[in-house]
């Protein structure tokens, strides 16, 4: 039995007070509720407590995040954001949630009922499953899978099924457009996303997220800047956020794949989307920002959440500032840009790990320096590859200033 959660004082108390086992990590035993032989029950109860905290925490944080995103977007747009209902508008998403639950649940006549109804659930499940492997702090996780990173990559691509089911099931052409775009986007971005993590895995020497966190004497964002860049862009695309929100592109497709959903089914989609955003921030923190590791005056769980904040805020900031790319530009960015960058990163990291197989902190600093130079050079080079003629930056050569209007009075072109 894996008793890693015993690192965490809170769960250790629950487990140790329940279980009669003479586990060395429980220290001095005062009493035990369960008789001997029921250690599995103690393990189960502790696990359920952690799961409850995590799942409800996630759903609750979705509400907080929706509020925070709306307030922040308001700020970035020179307006207030929700401020009417509750202190600083905090109850607005709660009111929205209640409203969403009581809305009429419409199933279109032409819809494939089973597929249509199942899609929101299928959408929600992967986000909850990813929760299991994220080390929210020292000892605060459900499972320390030794293939944790692989698990995340595999599970998150499940949401593609949900999107296709939603698009196909609702028999709506806009939804179908959205679903097709989402599939194309997800398939393309899985590859750079997985490749960008390889550098991290090489340095950490493990696929387990817990080991990756413990390997980060120096946060991997510094050691692996290029990997972080690719991973961040790929995650942003994977969770359908600006500038890659082509799947629901509200100005083109209405609402994309969930155009026809209403009521709580729509709520589940929304929930899953925001949960995915939060979880991707969590993965970024675990893999690149050193997880819960920081100074000791705050518990590691708090550090973890604090580190998620800048990531989430930056995502909102991007959403507030940038327009959306076209779907073909999104795809060619993945295939022509990110994959190349990811390969450069793999080669670079491989060479560096060959030189320093088991890096100390000083060696990590050296790696960071070298990788930073590699990142700047390769981004510049790949940016040039994307140059004129290619879709992501069509007609935009590097260094060339965009055109400006000429004053009239010069001879006019066209027919006069």
């Amino acid at each position, binding site marked *: 039995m894996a008793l890693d959660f015993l690192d965490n004082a809170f769960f250790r108390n629950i487990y140790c007070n329940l279980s009669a086992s003479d586990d060395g990590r429980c220290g001095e035993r005062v009493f035990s509720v369960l008789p001997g032989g029921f250690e599995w029950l103690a393990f189960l109860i502790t696990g359920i407590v952690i799961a409850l905290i995590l799942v409800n925490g996630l759903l609750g944080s979705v509400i907080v995040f929706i509020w925070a995103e709306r307030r922040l977007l308001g700020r970035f*747009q020179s307006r207030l954001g929700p401020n009417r209902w509750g202190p600083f508008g905090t109850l607005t998403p709660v009111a929205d949630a209640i409203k969403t639950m009581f809305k009429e649940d419409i199933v279109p006549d032409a819809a494939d009922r089973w597929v249509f109804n199942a899609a929101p659930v299928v959408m929600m499940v992967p986000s909850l499953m990813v929760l299991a492997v994220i080390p929210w702090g020292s000892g605060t996780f459900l499972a320390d899978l030794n293939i944790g990173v692989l698990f995340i990559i595999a599970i998150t691509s499940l949401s593609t099924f949900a999107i296709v089911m939603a698009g196909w099931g609702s028999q709506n052409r806009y939804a179908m*457009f959205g679903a097709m775009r989402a599939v194309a986007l997800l398939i393309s971005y899985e590859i750079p996303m997985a490749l960008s993590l390889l550098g991290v895995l090489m340095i950490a020497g493990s696929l387990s997220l817990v080991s990756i966190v413990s390997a980060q004497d120096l946060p991997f964002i510094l050691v692996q800047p290029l990997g972080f860049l690719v991973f961040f862009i790929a995650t942003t695309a994977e969770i359908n956020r600006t500038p890659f929100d082509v799947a629901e592109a509200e100005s083109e497709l209405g609402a994309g794949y969930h155009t026809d959903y209403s009521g709580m089914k729509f709520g589940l989609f929304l929930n899953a989307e925001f949960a995915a955003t939060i979880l991707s921030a969590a993965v970024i923190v675990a893999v690149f920002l050193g997880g819960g590791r920081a100074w000791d005056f705050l518990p590691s769980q708090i550090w973890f959440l604090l580190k998620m904040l800048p990531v989430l805020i930056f995502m909102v900031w991007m959403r507030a500032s940038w327009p959306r790319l076209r779907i073909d530009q999104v795809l060619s960015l993945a295939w022509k840009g990110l994959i190349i960058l990811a390969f450069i990163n793999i080669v670079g990291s491989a060479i560096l790990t060959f030189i320093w197989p088991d890096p100390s902190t000083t060696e990590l600093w050296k790696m960071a320096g070298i990788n930073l130079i590699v990142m700047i050079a390769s981004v510049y080079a790949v940016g040039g590859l994307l140059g004129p003629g290619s879709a992501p930056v069509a007609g935009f050569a590097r260094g060339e200033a965009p055109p400006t*209007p000429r*004053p*009239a009075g010069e001879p006019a072109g066209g027919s006069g």
Partner: protein
Amino acid sequence: MTLQSEPVIVNVGPQHPSTHGVLRMRVAFDGETVTDAEMIIGYLHRGSEKLAEERTFTQVITLTDRMDYVAAMTNNQAYVLSVEKLAGIEPMPRGVYLRMISAELQRIASHLMAVGFLLQDLGALATPLMYMFREREDILDLFELMCGARITVSYHRPSGVFQDVPDEFWGRLRQFLDGMPAHIDEYERLISGNEIVLSRMRGVGVLDPDVMVNASITGPMLRAGGVDWDLRHRAPYEFYDRVSFDRPIMDESDNYARYLVRVYEMREALKIVEQCVEQIEPGPVRDPDVPFVLRPPVGESYVGIEGPKGELGFYLVSDGGISPYRCKVRPPSLLNLTLLREMVIGLPMADMIVTFGTVDVNMGEVDR
């Protein structure tokens, strides 16, 4: 190997986030690519031209407010100029300057809306739109000081404007004129150099200038195609011959050019307002001898002005009565849509939306 496929017919509109009102396009898609498009309009048709035949010449001004409802001042101006020509009324100079100031402010407001909604079509989550509404709000506040209304202004009258502006107006206008260039720079920093915007808009929706002229396309769209055609310059009405301003011209004729020309025109409009403020002199704003119920002599008149969206004109026929015998609008929004089908065929869906956005139509004016 070719895939057996058939086009998907999608109705974009009349209720769609990006059709700027109630335009409906029946589009055939092959994958994401537009293979055919048909424009269906009329969802906002209110029969303004027929209504105008039943109203006195002054009452029709209230109808013109509701044609292009984001640019009511220029509508008023075009109509009033046509009435003045029909009835042979000489306008008061101060009234003319006030008309020019209000029309240029309205041009800025209209371009702000055009650019903001264009960026909305690009998926920029309303941030540029919110910034532009912020400044448009200042303009509408000025209009409220001028005439007590913000959108449907009914401010211009034959022979001048309805009423002189209050003293407070000039201070607020000065404040606006001082602040606005910085705001335009802000938009440019946010939008013009943005790589996503550039890659989305450059080289998309290109139109040939000769074809545009032949298709009666006017306004910023034509100027973005390299044709130096601005009625304020080529056929000056009001006192546009007394102010100096530049016409931004671009040769690319793509979506980005159409966007950028609008941004630069805002700057030129500010220059015109500045010069009007310098040149305006005290005096009557309206000829008291012009009665409320006009009876122009039998005849007809057409005056076209450079509206924010293109040449906006009113063709009036009088039979000597108190209401126009025939009132025909030259709607720039409608005529700029002439080439829509040619523009969007072959484009991906996302670019179709943006291309439609750069035409800058107002459905109130398209359907009237």
